[in-house]
């Protein structure tokens, strides 16, 4: 089986050159054929493990705490701000 690299790259919001596509397709297919060995394992009726702590529903009291970051600080690493907010590309077309 092969991975459709250009499709996966699009899903992951990555832009690849043609040369990269070819290289990654080979490398990812290698890894894919390696992991096929899991098919040998009988996992019928085996519960999946998504975490190992055994903790459930960790909550805290719903009380207001002081905000640790001032607005200016929160924006300090962004190259794209306007009026104290993060500026992003339009999602919906206005026309």
């Amino acid at each position: 089986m092969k991975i459709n690299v250009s499709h996966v790259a699009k899903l992951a919001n990555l832009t690849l050159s043609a040369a990269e596509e070819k290289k990654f397709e080979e490398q990812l297919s290698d890894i894919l054929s390696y992991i096929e060995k899991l098919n040998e394992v009988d996992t019928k009726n085996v519960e999946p493990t998504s975490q190992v702590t055994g903790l459930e529903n960790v909550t805290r009291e719903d009380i207001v705490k002081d905000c640790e970051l001032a607005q200016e600080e929160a924006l300090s690493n962004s190259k794209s701000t306007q009026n104290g907010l993060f500026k992003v590309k339009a999602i919906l077309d206005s026309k």
Partner: protein
Amino acid sequence: MDLNQLTIAEALEGLRGKKFSSVDIAKACLEQIRKHNEDINAFITVDEKGALEQAESADKQRANGEELPFLGIPIALKDIFLTKGLKTTAASKVLENYIPQYDATVVAKLKDAGAIIIGKINCDAWAHGSSGENSDFGPTKNPWSKEHVPGGSSSGSAAALAADMCLASTGTDTGGSIRLPASFNNLVGLKPTYGRVSRYGIIAMASSLDSIGHFTKTVEDSALLLSVTAGSDPHDATTPDKTVSNYSKIENGVKGLKIGVPKEYFASGLDSEIKEKTEAVIKKLEELGAEVVDISLPNTQYAIAAYYIIMSSEVSSNLARYDGIRFGNDRSFFGDEAKRRIMFGTFTLSAGYYDAYYKKAMQVRTLIKQDFEKAFEKVDAIISPVSPTAPWKLGEKVNDPLKMYLSDIFTVTANLAGIPSLAVPAGFSNGLPIGIQIMGTQFSEEKLFQVGYAFEQATEYYKHTPKL
């Protein structure tokens, strides 16, 4: 002996006895960095000014009679630990100019304990790798032989400490990223129980596997450091509210302890000299009074496959946030390894493949975890090699990602099961260090220190140092 070569315990004793000052130690470390970092490439950022200021203030505190567990001890941090006001890159060009607005919990705890943050350390970008060669800031060299890799992903953490540029360093271990470089540099490396140390403020790789640990020269130092970093954190919901023991009170000897040796870890693929050295470790522990028990962890052979699916899936999700809007550069700045893992994880999570890959891997994870649970009914701890081979040469595996992944074959199991593992030096192969690991049940760090300490004191490999 120079001050930068001291263990933490020795330095604390000297500081308390007023034999030298924190500034003296910090200067010795900074001098060593100046002399050798260009060759070794262990540091991405050296905070010379900040380190000296912190050292001066530590000396003042001590003069005023204040006493803190790490007062005046220079520590270096893997560059994925957020440090307020100090650049944190994850060794990736995506974050080449990122200045965190807050400290990771562990960093805050270290500062509160009086430690001096001397700088930020090179690693495989985003902690993806087993050799250190995936850093966007150039590979780190092994101080024992500059033609060889220091192991990854916490490559610089191990190299900086082995080269005496700091007295301890932090790391993260998602599939072996502390234990492998520790063993390649004759150091003690602790991967704590999942959840024992907070992940808050540490750039996430695979959130269900990431363990926050450290590198030290001795087992005693490792225990001292865990006493500071461990504990529940309201900012990390996966840190159980378990008592933090005084880990540095290490019990003496291994008499009567049952040590398991898993036969699957000695199967084909294990280098003959590593096998010999590991068998010598087992013999030594037997001489010291431990009872050695043969055990089986039958699903070991599936660990790497399960790990790569789970890890890549979580990586693809965690790295989705890097879009260049709130911080950092855009996604075109990701290196090859991050791209591979993001795409592989995106694939295994995508519609139509989730059950076949991600769910299957999580089920195999259950079986691997159960293997350990069964084994620990019979034994107190398990011993195995860390790496199937001695350190390899720079460049040897860079074009074959799968081959690189297989270097972690003995280490990923502890992450999948969430158990702690302590890597300790086990000798040398052609002059290059190799290590073994001691695994235990969840939250059994004390027992690992006990076994590690007994072995260390009987062998004293830590007394060997590289010639730079």
